[in-house]
Structure formats: structure tokens, C-alpha cells
């Protein structure tokens, strides 16, 4: 069985209605339960939980420190290519966006690696658009072999691949794959992805199943906040997480919270999510699941990031460039989206220390598989 069978039994509108129908007493019960169910998660993300935000934050902080201590892990994205055959209405890499396209050569990648290593990073996240012919599994194999000696942990956020393709990449050093569903609203998903392989909702939805079967160490989940009702989308993410944890029990999981950011010529968010609501969501995930890793990118503002590192987040990026070749060239020409927190890694490390936390550069070793 794959997740799609569970997904197909549910109705978006009914789920949405049940979340908005949650009451203060549902929230209070959720906060009191020692182990929280998906119904409790609904209560924690509902409008009824808004007055309980301080209580949720205190609980989230306590649970996070118990499991992860006073530590924040650091990673950096390395954009390899902005070639893409998809049309995504919200993305700077979209096929119909008339921006210059490039895919890094081995020489260019090593130049990027040199800069990233000089910052102190040991965990890198490889990012591409979706151009299977030029940036497919053979390219990824080449890149993994090239950069593995420099990093103890390598993650990828690229197009969904087949199980056999993941099985080829894992022995070459692939540890983690992030694959965001963008939205679990099937009809809107089609509207946002009208062309390209990405328009296949089911193939994307089943990607974590393929990753679990392939035996990858960690799977990152998430939705693009702003495309649809974030509460309903987050419920489906939590449901997906629970299914995956029970099915692929040897795999680790992380959740990210990308809020839709501007890009050159892009779509304005359909749904706004306030900072207060994002804090509610982060805390709700932590209270629902004590072990899941929660990650925050440079999409968010300095002020926001300074404060949420104490509330439940376990990893952040710092000093990110979202254009291929951006670290070595220092240009910002071909970016996927605008970043909001432009501080250098050293400044972020200082900020983490000021909050009473330790910045962790290394938490894996490539000898571990």
C-alpha cells in the first residue's frame, strides 16, 4: 500500500471544515494529552488555538530541548541548475520565465564548494529545477562523486526520481531527499503545474514511498505555504508524516515551512500566513511529533529567525544564494526566489549563540552510509 490509497479516501473540504470547527476545549485537550493524535494536531493548527500560542510555544520549546538539546544544525543550499521543463506559477525557474539558464560544470561546482567550505559548512543541500535530459540521474551521480569528499552529509531537493534511480544515488553519498508536495489540493495543484512532468500529482505524492522503499536515510516533507489553505495542507502533511513513520520506520523525517516569496514576474500568494500563524504551525508540529526535525530557510526575516530558533526549529540555513554559481560569482541574477535574511553564516552562528544555543556544523559522517 502507498500513501495515495489513504489520501484518496479523504475529502479536502471535509478536512478543512473539521479543522475550522475545533473549539477551545479541543485545544486544551490536545495540550494535556501526553501523546497527540491527528485530531489533536487539527486542534493545534485551528483558529481556536490562537489564544493558546504562548502556552504552545512553551511546550514546544520544552519538548524540543528534551529531544534535540540546545542545538541548531546548519546547512546551505547549492543551486546546481535553473534549467526546468515545468511551468510552476510561483517559481523563478518556471519554463515560461524568460531568465538566462545555466547548469554548473564540475569546475564551477568545485568553485562553489570552495566558498561553501570556507564558511565552515559540512552539510550541503543540492538544488535543481526539473530538466531530466540535461540534469538527470547521470548528472547527479557525477555531482555526488565529485563533492562527497568535502561533505559529511549531502541532501538533495531535485525533481522526483524513480526508486531504482534513488537506489543508484544512495551508495554514492545521498543521505537526505527533500520533496515538497507544494499543495495537497489536487485541483489547485493542476492549476499551478499545468505543464511538465511535475503536473503528475500522483507521481509526486508517491515520491516519499519510493524513497522509503529505496532506503534513503532522511526524507524532508512540506508544502509551499501560500498556494492553498495552510491549515488543511499542513494536516495532510502531518498525515503523510505519520503514515511514512509507521511504514518506513528506519527513515528519519524533517518538515520545512517555505512561505511563498516574490520572484521576478511571479505569483502573489493566494493565502497569506502571518508570522504569528507560522509560529503556531511550528509549535503544533513539535507538540504533535517530538522527534521530527523542523527546518527554516532564509526565506524568513532576521527578526523572525532570531526568535523562532528557541521555539522548535532544529536546523536553519545561513548565507544562502539561490542562483547557480552565486557563491563564487557573488551575483544574484538567476535566482529562484528572493531571500529575506541575508546575514553571513558567522553572523547567524553568533545569533544562535546569543540565544543560548550551540551551532552544529556536523551531525553525520559519510562512513555511516
Amino acid at each position, binding site marked *: 500500500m502507498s500513501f495515495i490509497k489513504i489520501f484518496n479516501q479523504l475529502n479536502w473540504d471535509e478536512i478543512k471544515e473539521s479543522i475550522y470547527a475545533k473549539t477551545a476545549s479541543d485545544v486544551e485537550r490536545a495540550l494535556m494529552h501526553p501523546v497527540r493524535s491527528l485530531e489533536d494536531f487539527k486542534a493545534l493548527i485551528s483558529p481556536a488555538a490562537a489564544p493558546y500560542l504562548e502556552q504552545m510555544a512553551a511546550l514546544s520549546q520544552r519538548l524540543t*530541548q*528534551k529531544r534535540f538539546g*540546545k*542545538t541548531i544544525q546548519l546547512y546551505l543550499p547549492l543551486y546546481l541548475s535553473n534549467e526546468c521543463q515545468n511551468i510552476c506559477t510561483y517559481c523563478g525557474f518556471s519554463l515560461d520565465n524568460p531568465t538566462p539558464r545555466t547548469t554548473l560544470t564540475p569546475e564551477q561546482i568545485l568553485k562553489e564548494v570552495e566558498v561553501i567550505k570556507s564558511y565552515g559548512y559540512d552539510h550541503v543541500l543540492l538544488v535543481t529545477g526539473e530538466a531530466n535530459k540535461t540534469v538527470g540521474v547521470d548528472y547527479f551521480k557525477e555531482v555526488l562523486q565529485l563533492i562527497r569528499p568535502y561533505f559529511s552529509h549531502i541532501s538533495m531537493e531535485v525533481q522526483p526520481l524513480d526508486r531504482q534511480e534513488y537506489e543508484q544515488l544512495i551508495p554514492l553519498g545521498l543521505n537526505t531527499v527533500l520533496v515538497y508536495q507544494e499543495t495537497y489540493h489536487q485541483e489547485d495543484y493542476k492549476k499551478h503545474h499545468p505543464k511538465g512532468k511535475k503536473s503528475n500529482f500522483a507521481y509526486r505524492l508517491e515520491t516519499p514511498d519510493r524513497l522509503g522503499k529505496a532506503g534513503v536515510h532522511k526524507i524532508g516533507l512540506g508544502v509551499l505555504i501560500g498556494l492553498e489553505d495552510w491549515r488543511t495542507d499542513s494536516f495532510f502533511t502531518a498525515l503523510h508524516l505519520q503514515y511514512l*513513520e509507521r511504514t518506513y520506520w*528506519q527513515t528519519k523525517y524533517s518538515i520545512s515551512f517555505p512561505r511563498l516569496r516574490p520572484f521576478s514576474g511571479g505569483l502573489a500568494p493566494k493565502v497569506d500566513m502571518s508570522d504569528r500563524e507560522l509560529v503556531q504551525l511550528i509549535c503544533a508540529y513539535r507538540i504533535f511529533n517530538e*522527534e521530527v526535525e523542523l527546518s527554516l530557510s532564509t526565506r524568513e526575516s532576521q527578526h523572525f529567525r532570531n526568535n523562532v530558533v528557541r521555539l522548535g526549529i532544529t536546523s536553519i540555513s545561513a548565507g544562502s544564494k539561490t542562483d547557480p554559481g552565486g557563491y563564487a560569482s557573488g551575483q544574484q541574477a538567476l535566482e529562484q526566489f528572493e531571500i529575506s535574511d541575508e546575514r553571513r553564516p558567522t553572523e547567524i552562528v553568533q545569533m544562535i549563540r546569543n540565544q543560548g544555543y550551540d551551532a552544529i556544523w*556536523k551531525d553525520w559522517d559519510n562512513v*555511516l552510509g
Partner: protein
Amino acid sequence: MTPLTIADKIFHSRLFTGTGKFSSGQQMEEALLASGSGLVTIALKRVDVQNEQDDILSHLAHPQFNLLPNTSGVRNAKEAVFAAQLAREALETNWLKLEIHPDPKYLLPDPIETLKAAEELVKLGFVVLPYIHADPVLCKRLEEVGVAAVMPLGSPIGSNNGLQTRAFLEIIIQQSTVPVVVDAGIGAPSHAAEAMELGADAVLVNTAIAVSQQPVQMAKAFKMAVEAGRMAYEAKLAPVGITAHASSPLTAFLDEL
């Protein structure tokens, strides 16, 4: 308090410590020094063995700290043996805390892979201290393959729930021929004292110290609790019963006949 011997080493403290979750390397160092611990476990995945300035290793450069590398992160015996060999080479110690937890959510140890790995590692000359469930039969099987100690969990790692496996720990302690180190779940000095009163040879504590508001003070509290618990064990606790023992026994008159 009698010292503890494991393999060829004598420990004057029966409190072993971990290095994760501290808010800084400096705070970790101060807390571990305050704990009096002589055996400190470190995750291979967290240290950069090529770097002399590594934030963890540089704070452990004290003669009283014996390093106990652990294999946290491995999922099977094969990976564990590989990681152990790397740790031995990099950290120049054949001591190893064998951890195989394929389940990343609760970090529960895999008994089958642990036994397989322990057998092979002992043959390769390692001093193996396996992290395991509080399973008395597994402990005996591990003894048979030659481990130097066993490290059963008190409750799930990082949970601070204390000795929820107490009934099994009592059996393990009673029948073990190697030192028993209660590992995982010890969340308060009273839990550590309880383990020592039961007759455990040592306890390993990390989260409860690292995550407390004042790690240095908490480390001292654990030091004292472990010493108190061990002293009580050596002094032999008074028996516990639910019936009253009259100071003038009812049948004493029989002796007068």
C-alpha cells in the same frame, strides 16, 4: 566507594557522561569536569576527527576523560563494524559504545544486529560496551561473546522517565558477570541513585545534565547521587516489608521454656 574495573581500566567515578545537546562546547567541558566522570561517550558522527580544533574533542582534552566513541547512526552490524574501525583509528582507542538503532524515532536498539556486531568486534580486539534493551537473556548472550560490560536502558533514550525497566534491571544485575551500566532514561539524580542502590555498577547520563537550566550544578548533583546510591548499596539497605516486626516478639516466650 569501591572503584569500578571495566576491562583494563579502573574508574573512581561510577558516573559516565555524554557530550550531546549542550548549548556550547565550553559549557559541556565545565559540566563534565564538575561531574567527576572518567568515561565520556562521543558520537562519531558529531566529531571531525581530522580537525584538532574540533569543538567537542578540543574540550575533552583532559587526562581524566577516557573517550568512549559510539556508533550512533548506524543501522546494522556491518555499518557498526565499519564505524568502529574508523573510530579506533581516528581516536586511538579500542573502547566502543556499540549502538545500533535502526529506528530513528525512539532510537531503540536492535538486539539481533547488536549481538552479531558485538561478536565480531570482540574478535577484532575491541572493548565493547553495548547499548541494549533491558533484556536479561540478551545480556547473557552478550557476555558469552565477550563484551566488557552491558548497558541496558532504564527507559527510552532522552525521555528522562527513569527506571521503567526496573524489574528487568534487577534480574540483569543479579545474574550478570560483567559490569552493568544503566544507560538512557535517567532524568533526575534520584533515578541515578535508585539505579546504584539496585546494584548497577555505573550509570550513563547525558540529556538530564545537558538540558537542565544549570548543567554544571546538575552534573554535581548527579555526582553526589551516584556516590550516595553506591554507598547505600555497599552498606546494604535495610529490608523492605509490609508487615510490622514487633520489638517484643509474640513468640519470645517459647525461648524462655
